[in-house]
């Protein structure tokens, strides 16, 4: 059994890497200091596409939000997606005023509802050809 199996992010810079065991990862967004608009993913080019300002700063986004919309996909998407099917994705609205497109996990998809609270998790998306775990962000409905 190859114990050198690595965990690699689907894409660098989408979420913070905790520096201590007590810290939880957070998604990294951008805030426009001119118009107040918030973007996810962050704007690496430093440009606000709402007001055309170039005065942005990175911000760590709230870990919890409400499900704005979701769907459960029953078909295999062409080529790229290598996660499980069926799968669920949609949008979570975070309190600072941004909607994040996300996969959903950790629940029976039949239980998904608009308005549910959900929290950020970093989880395996698929295993690549070298058996590394490709990691991504997902949101998990919070059970009360």
């Amino acid at each position, binding site marked *: 059994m190859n114990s050198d199996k690595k965990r690699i992010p*689907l894409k660098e810079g989408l979420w913070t890497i905790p520096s201590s065991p007590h810290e939880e990862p957070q998604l990294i967004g951008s805030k426009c200091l001119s118009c107040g608009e918030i973007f996810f993913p962050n704007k690496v080019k430093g440009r606000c596409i*709402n007001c055309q300002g170039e005065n942005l700063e990175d911000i760590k986004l709230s870990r919890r939000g409400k499900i*704005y*919309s979701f769907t*459960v*996909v*029953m078909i295999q998407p062409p*080529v790229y*997606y290598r996660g499980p099917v069926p799968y669920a*994705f949609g949008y979570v609205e975070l309190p600072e005023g941004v909607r994040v497109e996300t996969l959903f996990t950790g629940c029976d998809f039949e239980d998904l509802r608009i308005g549910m609270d959900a929290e950020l998790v970093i989880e395996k998306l698929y295993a690549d050809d070298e058996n590394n775990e490709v990691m991504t962000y997902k949101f998990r409905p919070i059970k009360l």
Partner: protein
Amino acid sequence: MKTISELRGMRPVYIAGVGLTPFRRYKDEEWYDFGSRAILEALKNAEMVWGDIQAAFLGSVYQGTGSGHQAISEVGLTGIPIINVENACSSSTVALRLAYQSVATELYDVCLAGGFEKMPRKGTFLSTAWREWERYMGFNVQLANYALGAQRYMEEYGATEEDFARVTVKNRKNGALNPRAIFQKEVTIEEVLNSRMIAKPMHLLNCCPLADGGVAYIVCSGDKLKSKNKKVAIATSVLTSGTYGLSGTGAGNEAYGGGSVKIHNIDVAELAAKQAWEVSGYGPEDIDIFEAYDTMSPSELWSIEDMGFCKKGEAPHLLREGMFDIDGKLPVNTDGGLMSCGHPLGATGGRQVCEIYWQLREEAGPRQVAGAKIGMCHTKGAGPNSCVTILKR
């Protein structure tokens, strides 16, 4: 930029003739085969010859470089400018817009416009609307993005799966009267709801079928028309392409719910409609027939509402009351729409234009709407784009 009255003061532009191939799977033909047939059909319909054409604008999405050139090389080569147009599903109506502008501004007197598509057979519908990481996340399923919008529509306005099914039923009923449609068989609400789930709440029969096809139209000034009978003029052609905050068809975060929470700019389809009403001088009450963009059942309802034919959330009720039937107050998709005809991306907009053209000339046969004088079509395209065209007798 020209003012509204300057735009209205430009010379009238007419559609002299159209050609539309049946929409189906063309196993043994390429786009230049059936595409060139559409061009020849349009020339014949317009009583013109290839030598009359002064410029060509042809749309396609997946056919690759020089797609228009290839189709025209089956017809004639006279050194005229040929421009290939790619605006996703709105390519052929955007091509019409370019021809319209060229003739209206007197740059040319006779133009060819249109589009064609032989849809890719396997797997990849490569779309630049999603970044690579988003495709790995499984976000790039267009049907699923419409499903996300449908979920919100149900939540906000109480629309039901039955409402969505009713769109398919109406359009398949109309398609049964259209010899060019890929599906010419009616379906029931039960059949739609029992068809397999693709992405909740969208069933298979809420999705338009894929198809291949080609369309062409001859666009010209009044003095070049061979027949002065039943003249069909282009009242306006509008294109809007993406407003920050809230926009339609797929482009990452802005699609169907991912739009901004704080910024509420006008939706790209609503903006196109607003401009179309302004320039044409018409209002929703003036339209006799409408080709809505029904790539999936709910998008027909959104198309109707975004144009301003009724309030948001109202379309399902009016549909149930028969308002959008062929014999209703505002017939929508009399040729069966994308739902029956199928969706060759580069030709879909043009098919809408042809149906309006035939309806206005009383040539729609069993689909004929009595007394149709002003028709409108709305083509959306990933980008996003919204192209609105109004034709009048």
